[in-house]
């Protein structure tokens, strides 16, 4: 009896292996898709890293210096010295600023009043005017922040502030230089894993339904669960390779070291990959065509991941309904986990809640999968 059970198990294993081998053949033979799958994470990381950046560099600014004294000169030099701004030196009347903004020649303007030095010496305070082009809100806010920081720093350093001015000292923890990479690398990781695991898995299974081979597989002694497992394994391996590639790129090309524990990061990623695979399988069970599967994966998952995971827009600012939706998105939890491990160096003790939510979601999806799968199998 025991040997029979053993024999049976090894038979199942060899079925599974020949199945996995076949899946790899499908995958490797489809060169175009393979290129996309491996190229995408690399391109995304490099794109976000070097091209699409929130960081502000060499913003063109005009300083309307009505004071033209020592203080104003020093301030202008200080602004120019920072890599964030390029100061245009043409002297403009205040009315000319509007035209400069409209033509796009400048993104910001700083107006220094005539009596800058006098007021500072007498009252110990003064008001300068900052104008920014708010057609791009993020840019405008960043510029305003940088400029304010420079001016505050200037007045403190040069000892011109009155003794009783309370200047807030802001420290940006974990990411003092306000770099974009810590934000988007976890985002790209979530996105790529989602795309590979959910979409590719769903499409791969539905393709067999479309071509009719699924029927043949179901009539074979291969257990339906095995069929699906065999489909998921190659994509699991593929997404792991992708994951390592992203991490390698971000540590080398983008100088973003992993502060936390790498095994923990990989373990959490495996959990998320499992969540995604389960989702992909669920989609494949309820859909009958590759197009529908792809559509659901893209609209139903990729968009929420980009919009709602907090990767592009802060969840805190969303209306309640969207916030609720965000909390139901698995990638939102993974995104937080990756960010905390990579950037803050957090351990499992700080992340067990997020991990539990993700694990719970996976179990729920898995149960749903099994239920739907059995229904489908009987009614087709």
């Amino acid at each position, binding site marked *: 009896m025991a040997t029979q059970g053993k024999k049976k198990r090894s038979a199942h294993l060899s079925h599974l292996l020949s199945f996995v081998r076949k899946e790899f053949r499908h995958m490797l033979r489809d060169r175009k898709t393979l290129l996309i799958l491996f190229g995408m994470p690399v391109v995304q990381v490099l794109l976000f890293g070097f091209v699409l950046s929130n960081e502000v560099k060499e913003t063109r600014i005009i300083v309307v210096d009505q004071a033209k004294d020592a203080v104003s000169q020093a301030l202008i030099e200080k602004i120019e010295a920072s890599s964030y701004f390029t100061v245009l030196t043409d002297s403009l009347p205040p009315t000319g600023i509007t035209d400069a903004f409209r033509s796009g020649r400048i993104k910001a303007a700083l107006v220094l009043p005539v009596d800058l030095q006098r007021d500072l010496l007498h009252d110990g305070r003064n008001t300068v005017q900052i104008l920014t082009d708010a057609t791009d809100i993020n840019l405008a806010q960043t510029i305003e922040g940088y400029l304010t920081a420079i001016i505050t720093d200037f007045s403190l350093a040069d000892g011109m502030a009155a003794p009783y001015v309370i200047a807030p000292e802001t420290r940006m923890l974990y990411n003092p230089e306000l770099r974009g990479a810590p934000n988007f690398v976890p985002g790209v990781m979530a996105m790529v894993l989602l795309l590979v695991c959910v979409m590719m898995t769903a499409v791969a299974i539905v393709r067999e339904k479309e071509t*009719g081979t699924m029927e043949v597989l179901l009539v074979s002694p291969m257990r339906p669960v095995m069929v699906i497992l065999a489909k998921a394994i190659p994509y699991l391996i593929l997404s792991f390779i992708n994951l390592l590639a992203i991490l390698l790129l971000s540590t080398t090309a983008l100088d973003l070291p992993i502060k936390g524990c790498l095994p923990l990061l990989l373990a959490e990623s495996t959990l998320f990959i499992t969540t995604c695979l389960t989702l992909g399988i669920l989609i494949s069970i309820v859909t009958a065509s590759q197009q529908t599967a792809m559509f659901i994966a893209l609209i139903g998952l990729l968009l929420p991941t980009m919009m709602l995971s907090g990767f592009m827009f802060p969840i805190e600012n969303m209306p309640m309904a969207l916030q609720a939706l965000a909390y139901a998105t698995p990638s939102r939890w993974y995104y937080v986990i990756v960010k905390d491990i990579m950037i803050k160096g957090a351990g499992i003790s700080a992340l067990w809640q997020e991990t539990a939510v993700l694990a719970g979601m996976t179990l729920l999806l898995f149960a749903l999968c099994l239920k739907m799968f059995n229904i489908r199998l009987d009614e087709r």
Partner: protein
Amino acid sequence: MSTTATPHSIVAEGLTKRFGDFVAVDAVSFHVNKGEIFGFLGANGAGKTTAIRMLCGLSIPTSGKGTVAGFDVYTQTERIKRNIGYMSQKFSLYEDLSVTENIEFFAGIYGLSRDRIRTKREELIAKLGLVQEADKLVGALPLGWKQKLAFSVAVFHQPQIVFLDEPTGGVDPVTRRQFWDLIYEAADVGITVFVTTHYLDEAEYCDRVSIMVDGRIAALDTPTELKKQFGTGTMDSVFYELARGAKRGGA
């Protein structure tokens, strides 16, 4: 314990499948002999597919009795699956795998050993005249060859019964004829063939033919007997006589 000793490959007694109020297959009874070529005809929606799914162990019947290859359709579906072959109306090989890879894969999931697969594979490829094409992708083969290969793969593990669900759809008459030669060959070595078709000339090739109408078996006999019963010379008119009374489906 099993009833393998009976001469019947398939036995159905009052086999019924309901989906809610809809009775897809209504108390169907028949038996298929070992090595017989059994034609399973019926208009679209008559319940053929549901019946085949029950016999293949894909769908559990609502009521009635049934055995396939001596195994019970309720409790022994796993063993049924190991003893049957299946080829569907949709072409059922992988187009992006080569001829060799397709054979290896399907033989593999039926648990054939590697050595067995290798020797039998060479034999089959030689028999089908595909030696030159062995490493070509199946997608590049003409439809007729694909169809023949699909059938050969379905019987590669030497099942007791092979179910063919409209195997010759969209194939030209010459290839269809050649395909039937393969079916005869399989029947000669003792494989029971259970085949559905829309081509009524093919019904003539069967040992016996059943015609399903509205979930029931309306007629079952040899083609010669059926034609005599209905007083016509072709299976075409036999089928038409029966199918025009159908209340569901589009014939």
